[in-house]
């Protein structure tokens, strides 16, 4: 462990260890096969067992009998990132956890997806102001596909998030770029909304 | 080539591979592996003779089975000894285990 993970978030943004470089080969996907694969991927999202705090309980509820995400084929929660397809960031990510999250994400086999569950993972949520240790949104650490708001989002909301992700995969959409302007302030209202 | 000859040559090949390993390796466990190869060569030899020379009798087969059984006993004992030596001398290298102090 190198000293000072907190350095990651002070001063100029320094890239996380492990920059992504595409490996050669692969990627000959066309037409119908493409669709079949997208169908398979979207219907078999195995989540990583990853929960940091309160939202993890709601994630467990989603797995539980009443909401039962196994109906969609999500129930094979894997404990190792190698076998998981989607990482549901259920809970707050703090600065000490951020490298861990990054490492977990890096160690997942491609293709991989990320759902930010709850206010904390989306933006820092309740811990946005006045805290020295919370990452203000998991997308500062890893790229996020779907954001689910709520504190905690109720299980149906998480299911809705998963369905959104399914739709996204089926539509063949690529992941948004990492939002680079960290410390994006909530005051900065985008133009589309303010008019 | 006749099948019996071939088998016997294979068997002796295994045996001499074992011999080679036994001579070049100074590590007790690799030596054990070599010894297993030698024993296997011997067993194959016996089985081949039994099968292609006196097929109506079973002595060769039984001898081979017993060899396997004894090889198992030998391996078990040897490994027990190796582990014991290892605890005492922190090494499985024969040249390190010159004197058995304990």
């Amino acid at each position: 462990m190198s000293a000072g993970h907190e350095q990651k978030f002070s001063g100029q943004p320094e890239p996380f260890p492990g920059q992504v470089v595409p490996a050669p080969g692969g990627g000959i996907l066309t037409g119908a096969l493409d669709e079949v694969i997208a169908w398979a991927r979207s219907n078999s999202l195995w989540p990583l067992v990853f929960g940091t705090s309160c939202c993890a309980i709601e994630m467990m509820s989603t797995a539980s009998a009443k909401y039962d995400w196994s109906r969609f084929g999500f129930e094979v929660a894997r404990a190792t990132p190698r076998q998981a397809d989607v990482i549901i960031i259920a809970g707050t990510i703090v600065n000490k956890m951020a490298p861990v999250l990054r490492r977990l994400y890096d160690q997942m086999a491609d293709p991989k997806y990320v759902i930010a569950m709850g206010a904390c993972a989306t933006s820092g949520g309740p811990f946005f102001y006045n805290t020295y240790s919370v990452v203000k949104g998991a997308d500062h650490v890893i790229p996020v596909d779907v954001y689910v708001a709520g504190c905690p989002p109720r299980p149906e909301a998480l299911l809705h998030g998963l369905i959104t992700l399914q739709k996204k995969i089926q539509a063949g959409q690529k992941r948004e770029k990492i939002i680079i302007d960290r410390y994006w302030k909530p005051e900065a209202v985008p133009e589309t909304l303010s008019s | 080539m006749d099948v019996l000859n071939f088998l016997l040559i294979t068997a002796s090949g295994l045996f001499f591979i074992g011999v080679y390993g036994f001579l070049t390796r100074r590590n007790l466990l690799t030596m054990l592996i070599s010894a297993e190869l030698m024993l296997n060569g011997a067993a194959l030899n016996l089985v081949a003779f039994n099968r292609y020379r006196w097929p109506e009798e079973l002595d060769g087969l039984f001898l081979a089975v017993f060899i396997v059984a004894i090889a198992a006993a030998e391996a078990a004992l040897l490994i027990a000894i190796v582990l014991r030596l290892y605890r005492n001398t922190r090494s499985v290298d024969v040249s390190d285990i010159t004197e058995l102090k304990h």
Partner: protein
Amino acid sequence: MLQPDWILYILALMALAGGVMAVTTRRIFRAAVYLLFSLTALAGIYFWMHYEFMAAVQIIIYVGGIVVLIIFSLFLTHQTGQPLPEPAPLQRWGAAVLAAAAWVGMAVLLLDLPPALREAAMPTMSDIGSALLSVNETGMALPFEVITLLLLAAMVGCIVLALKDRTALNT
């Protein structure tokens, strides 16, 4: 029956190649794996010869027992990640020449054996069983019991050795 000789040749090649790799590789864990290949190929030869019982014994004891035991003891005594020391070149070449010469000599001697009796009735399991249990002079009951006693002795020996070891470990 579809049992051409080339299957035998392939199996023998596998056995020999596995053996060679096992004694020459410098990664000790791989040595065990190559030994596994060699032994399995031998079992294949036994299957090819229709000595299924022998083949099963080979697999069950060698592959399932001895190799597993060797692997366990590797974990116990080795930094399995470190390569083994290379033998001195003189020793290596000397031993190789010696073994090869001996093998060639042996092969030459073996070449003029009378041909094999290829078509023969195979012993069935009950043949083997009766032979194992019969007490007359061709029966194997006595050696069988002796082997059993030997195994018992081996077990006792192992336990004595290993348990002392265990107490040493705990301290």
